[in-house]
């Protein structure tokens, strides 16, 4: 089966190389975790996959017509922001049906009146419940207390088989519990 994403000897960075070389292949149904120490270039690797960082060597190959959804470490939190969670999901093209009850209640409220953790989970749901076939989650456990971290695990467990998830985290235990594969990332040297 054709991979959705393939990295071949990728070395990526900004003004100079930060991470790599990295090689991996991601197919439908995969949840791959990228793990490494702070500053090893996990987020830079993500940015390279999303076409936002500079590729110094190697290749990033996306399946033709592949659509991406991407959740960043910190969601855009404006104050005041009179946009509800449901409206956020609407503009992301994400289906609100199936939201866990705690998130469904938060989704009815303005984003500036819910907690950082609830906002984070709604952003993750916006990425997971849309039409994108490759979902990039950057440090999704940030801002989450143990209860919400468990909820995030449930959201990932209810994954679709036609989609792949690439997940960056510095929490090894979370990756081991919820990913089908974990890859250790090394900084470029």
């Amino acid at each position, binding site marked *: 089966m054709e991979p959705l994403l393939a990295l071949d000897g990728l070395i990526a960075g900004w003004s100079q190389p930060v991470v790599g070389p990295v090689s991996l292949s991601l197919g439908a149904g995969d949840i791959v975790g990228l793990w490494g120490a702070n500053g090893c270039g996990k987020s830079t690797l993500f940015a390279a996959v999303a*076409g936002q960082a500079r590729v110094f060597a190697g290749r990033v190959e996306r399946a033709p017509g592949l659509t*991406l959804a991407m959740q960043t470490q910190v969601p855009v939190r404006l104050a*005041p922001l*009179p946009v*509800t969670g449901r409206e956020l999901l609407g503009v992301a093209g994400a289906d609100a049906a199936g939201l866990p009850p705690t998130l469904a209640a938060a989704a009815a409220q*303005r984003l500036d009146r819910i907690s950082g953790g609830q906002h984070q989970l709604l952003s993750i749901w916006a990425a997971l419940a849309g039409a994108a076939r490759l979902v*990039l989650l950057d440090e999704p456990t940030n801002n989450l207390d143990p209860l919400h971290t468990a909820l995030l695990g449930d959201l990932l467990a209810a994954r679709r088989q036609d989609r792949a998830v690439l997940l960056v985290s510095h929490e090894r235990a979370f990756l081991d519990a919820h990913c089908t594969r974990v890859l250790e990332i090394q900084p470029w040297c």
Partner: protein
Amino acid sequence: MVLSELFDPLFRLALIDGLLLAAVLPVLGAVLMLRDEWLAALGFAHLAAAGALLGLAFGLPAVAGGVAAAGAAAIAKGAGGGQGNAVYGFMILGGWAALLLIGANTEVGEQLGRALIDGQLYFAGPADLIAAALLGGMTALILPWLMPRLLRARLLPQHDAANGYPVRRWQLGFDLLAAAGMAIGTASMGLMAAFALVLVPAWIAFRSAPSWRWTLAGSAALGVVGYLVSFAAALALDQPFGPMLVAVLLVLAGGYAAVARGPAA
């Protein structure tokens, strides 16, 4: 007496022209506030006023010169990729200097420049009404398509960037609409009145509305109510319209702030 003056045929054209603007400008203001670019309205208005005066000097309708100048500013901003209020600060300074220099050195003179700054809606002509109707039509046509894209670009910018969507083109489309709105508003009711319609209703709605849909509806409703009260009060009290509209909208904002703060302990 006030109501009868509201429906006086002498002022009917001005009333309808202003009503259209009072419904549309606050909606554009809400989007500008979402993008944290509400100062754009004042930048576009200053350049539109300078363009209107330059147009008049060459025998063009004020609204045509204003739309051309503000539109050119929106395109220049888009081409430069510069977003943020610093760009609009430069627009304000440039527009202000050009407005006064053109006024001082052309036959149309300082008085017309003053009129664009102060605003006097009752002298709005058919060209102003047609322009306001076109603005209303364009907004109704374009904004429903543009709105979800603008919201996503603001709240989930990484989605659009990762998929290579033409975000800058969408932003330019809205900038042109906002520039046209400010130019038409400035030509009809003056610079500060048009700016107040963009800023104040959206400011109140942003703090009070339960959702984005209600923010847009509330902004338009507040704009229309504030406008009608100002129109009637300016006629009844024989006061200039522009400052009256600004004053009424500020009273609405102050009233909201007082209610939101609640009773003192």
